[in-house]
């Protein structure tokens, strides 16, 4: 079953920190800070079982940013959506990687407060729930690889990011 990727702030999803005050079946409030909706929907990226495209998706999202910062995300089963009655709709993403935008970007739609609550609970109660972090150096390496291999032309990256990666690319490019 495919996964859905959502960028988060890991500190909002630390289960142990909320455990002391949560009633049975309740969820902490902090994760909702990462599920900000607009027109009752928010953006996710579809990642196939084999996760072959995971790094490419991360790279495409990181390319929209101003600096190669840490990248926190979580992956949850697509199947989870049916259990909490949430619809998913394929839409076009907004990154420099056009193929990724068309093939992998989706919105969770028609969201309500109760649906969001149920989704957070389902995610946090799942056996394989974990947040994942790439540190700035890893993100830098991913982006440099993508540019060097021409998967992402440097000029299509965020302009501030270009300024930061430019010297690193030049330093490692043979004359």
């Amino acid at each position, binding site marked *: 079953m495919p996964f859905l990727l959502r960028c988060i702030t890991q*500190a909002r*999803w630390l289960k142990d920190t909320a455990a002391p005050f949560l009633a049975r079946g309740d969820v902490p409030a902090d994760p909702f800070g990462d599920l900000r909706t607009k027109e009752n929907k928010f953006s996710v990226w579809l990642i196939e079982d084999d996760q072959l495209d995971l790094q490419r998706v991360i790279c495409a999202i*990181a390319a929209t940013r101003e600096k190669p910062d840490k990248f926190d995300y979580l992956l949850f089963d697509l199947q989870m959506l049916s259990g909490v009655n949430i619809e998913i709709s394929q839409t076009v993403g907004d990154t420099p990687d056009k193929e990724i935008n068309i093939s992998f970007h989706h919105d969770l739609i028609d969201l309500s407060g109760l649906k969001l609550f149920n989704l957070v609970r389902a995610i946090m109660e799942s056996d394989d729930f974990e947040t994942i972090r790439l540190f700035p*150096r890893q993100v830098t390496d991913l982006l440099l690889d993508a540019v060097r291999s021409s998967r992402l032309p440097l000029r299509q990256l965020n302009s501030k990011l270009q300024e930061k990666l430019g010297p690193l690319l030049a330093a490692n490019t043979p004359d």
Partner: protein
Amino acid sequence: MSQVLAYDSSTQVRERVPSETHSPLDESGEMLERMLMIIRGGVVKEISLPTRFNFTAPDEFSGRFFTIRDTVSEVTAAQEESQDMEGSSAQERPQVRIDKEIESLFRAAEKEVFEDGMENVFSEELTLFVNRYGNVSLDIMESLLFSSKADVEVVAQALRSLGEMHHPPSRDLRRSLIEKGLRQSSPWVRDGAVLGLAWLDDPAAIPSLTKAVQQEQIDELRRDMGKVLSQLERTR
């Protein structure tokens, strides 16, 4: 050695007093010694209110203007040319109070939305303060960073920024502040410290990070501390 002027901010008097009027053995001289410790990044607490005085200091502090009130957290500095201060009144001169400015910066940051990968005003301003005032600004920040009233997200962001900024003269003190973040009760703050150390990439943090890994109770934080530890080992 160059001259640094210090003054009593409660009276706003900035008259110069010849440094030779203070013997190293008298009360003011002792105060000057403590003052220099502050300037050099030493930690001094509970300084009693001095009268106005000036003294000599290493050239790197030339042109800085220091204010002492009653505690080290209230040391302020402004980079004013000491020559500018001669012959003009206190009211005519701009007085930069960096302790108040840094406090304001932290308060304003509570309203800022921080987004991974995006620049933010708070971090940019923090970097400017450190570039301009070096360790003095970090001494002031320390009391704000580890106050029980501090906004944990702002503190975490500050620790990240302290690691990310490029300012070699303050590197050791910044590392020390970030390491202190590893020992705070808030997981947000510890997480910010982990990220700060990842940015700083200084193997000198290995001992404190090793200890933090051993003591960390939250799985995700312990895992991330381990990753940064590996990074620092590779850097060493």
